[in-house]
């Protein structure tokens, strides 16, 4: 009974994690510049990975396996946190200017004027 519940919870967490991965990838495509895209990578993807690893940890057959899953998440968190600063810092040094003005970004193509 407990195993069934743990498996169900694990599957649920994996599924929600995948949704965060999907949303992060959407942000990567939709966000306007490199800095904003880094937000999608470091936040949504990390949360997705955390849920994925937690889901797999719940389904693990041994405690050490579950701990290994969480270790994977921890290492990726550290790497992505440092990596994001390095990429942003390099972009800033290269003169890529982040969008600083409040703006509404529309993805609809503007209508062409009638001739």
């Amino acid at each position: 009974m407990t195993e069934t519940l743990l498996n169900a919870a694990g599957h649920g967490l994996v599924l929600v994690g995948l949704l965060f991965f999907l949303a992060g990838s959407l942000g990567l495509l939709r966000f306007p510049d490199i800095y904003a895209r880094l937000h999608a990578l470091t936040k949504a993807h990390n949360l997705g990975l955390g849920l994925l690893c937690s889901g797999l940890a719940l389904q693990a057959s041994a405690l050490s396996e579950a701990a290994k899953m969480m270790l994977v998440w921890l290492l990726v968190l550290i790497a992505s946190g440092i990596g994001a600063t390095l990429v942003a810092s390099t972009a800033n040094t290269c003169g890529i200017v982040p969008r600083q003005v409040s703006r509404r970004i529309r993805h609809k193509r503007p209508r062409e004027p009638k001739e």
Partner: protein
Amino acid sequence: MTRLPRPLSRPGSAKNWAWRFALLAILWWMISGGEWASWRWGLPAIVIASLVMPAPTLPLRPLAWLRFVPVALWLGLRGGIEVTLLACRPQLVLDTRLVEYRWQRLVDGPGRLFLATLINLIPGTLTVRIQPHGLLVHVLHYRDDTHTMLSRLECHVARLFPGTVTAEETP
């Protein structure tokens, strides 16, 4: 005035060695999947590694770190949800800005580096540059409480790392 970190135990002291040994043993247990046979050559490797590993430059505060884990998890969850909501809106509305955050408590050292890395994982903020007087932070969707949130986070990190200045002592 800067309060200096309390003196460290000697790098080669038994207490320090025991901490390193315990940490490496836990890592080995995770990586090896808890197989007893792997300890035959894992144990000597752990002993040698814990002897040659450099001692931490700051005293450990395990309880403060344990208290910090739920805070970090909560912030990470909020950060992920916020970005997800922004990315999934049919009409993308962003108020992105670069803001300067001046150091209030942390002095130069690992505490500042940790905060700069941590900022990348919390809602809507990204460290662009670490400067002597503060951080240059990219905010995905600016809110009035962004500075307050960063300041609160610095307080949390200051509890983890010794060698901080108090708010009263900050000019």
